[in-house]
């Protein structure tokens, strides 16, 4: 009798936990390239470079009620555009990001918790140029009301907009600014991800 009561209690707890997991919604990036804007800012002696890409893949899963979630993002290196083709070639070359050997830049969360309102703190591993480093990002995750999504011509499904600014030091990822350009290129990139994701993928 006692054993069956314990078993029932455990069963109820497990069922409850599964129920809570089922509340998590998964949103997929990549279905709205024209709305994706991933930029990186680089200070150089020559000019301030504002590079960008609209290519992104991955997903974000979260439960806004419980304030927990996870995120995984991938950006293809060959899609990074600095506005000058020769500079793009340099950026993709083995001297810099080596797009052939390391074709993507990735971020995979370890933990994500809601701070307040639409603000989340996401900790995870950022991988670039074959090197992974822990990174903490304060992101804004905003649910898009169905009417606004429809008015903007977004496809069916629930949508969120994710805005995540952060900085990376190239040297920490094994990207050595070439000697010739040492006076011209800053080691730090300011990155900003603005991407839309929906439940239908």
């Amino acid at each position: 009798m006692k054993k069956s009561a314990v078993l029932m209690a455990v069963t109820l707890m497990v069922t409850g936990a599964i129920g809570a997991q089922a509340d998590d919604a998964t949103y997929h990036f990549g279905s709205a390239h024209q709305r994706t804007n991933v930029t990186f800012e680089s200070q150089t002696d020559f000019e301030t470079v504002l590079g960008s890409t609209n290519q992104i893949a991955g997903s974000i899963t979260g439960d806004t009620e419980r304030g927990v979630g996870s995120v995984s993002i991938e950006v293809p290196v060959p899609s990074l555009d600095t506005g000058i083709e020769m500079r793009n070639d340099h950026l993709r070359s083995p001297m810099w990001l080596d797009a052939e050997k390391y074709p993507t830049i990735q971020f995979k969360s370890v933990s994500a918790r809601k701070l307040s309102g639409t603000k989340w703190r996401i900790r995870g591993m950022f991988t670039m140029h074959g090197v992974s480093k822990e990174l903490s990002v304060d992101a804004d995750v905003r649910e898009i009301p169905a009417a606004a999504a429809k008015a903007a011509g977004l496809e069916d499904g629930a949508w969120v907009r994710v805005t995540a600014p952060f900085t990376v030091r190239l040297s920490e990822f094994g990207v050595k600014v070439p000697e010739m350009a040492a006076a011209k290129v800053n080691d730090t990139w300011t990155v900003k991800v603005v991407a839309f994701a929906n439940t239908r993928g």
Partner: protein
Amino acid sequence: MNPSRFSLRSRIAALVVFAAVAIAPSAILLDRLFGRDVLLISPHDEATVELNRSLHADGDPVAEIYGNPLSKPVRVVLLTERNVIHPAEDSSLALLPAGGDAPRPLQVQTVYFIARYAILALLLLSLVIAFLPIPRALSCSAGRA
């Protein structure tokens, strides 16, 4: 050295030095007369701007409705005014789309960067013109021509 040849070389070298010296004030003039501080943005498409506007809340950065901005304004020259966005939400802002289909503006720091190296190159050239010995055969053939 032939005096007339010396004189010609000196004149050319002086001219090159003058050109080098003139570059700095020209760059400064270009900056002062045609320079303007703008916030460069990687622009969103129109539908996204509308969507961002509907999601905008008090305290959110206005520039981000229109695109991903640089962290601080940059000074650009030879700007076409019609390309500048003055947001209705904050008309004091001057946003300039750059990247994608938008043209890349000429930044003042680029002007000074090029000016610095142009001055250096011209001064070196003037030294070469003034002091590099011209082989006799070359100078004779030049004289015959």
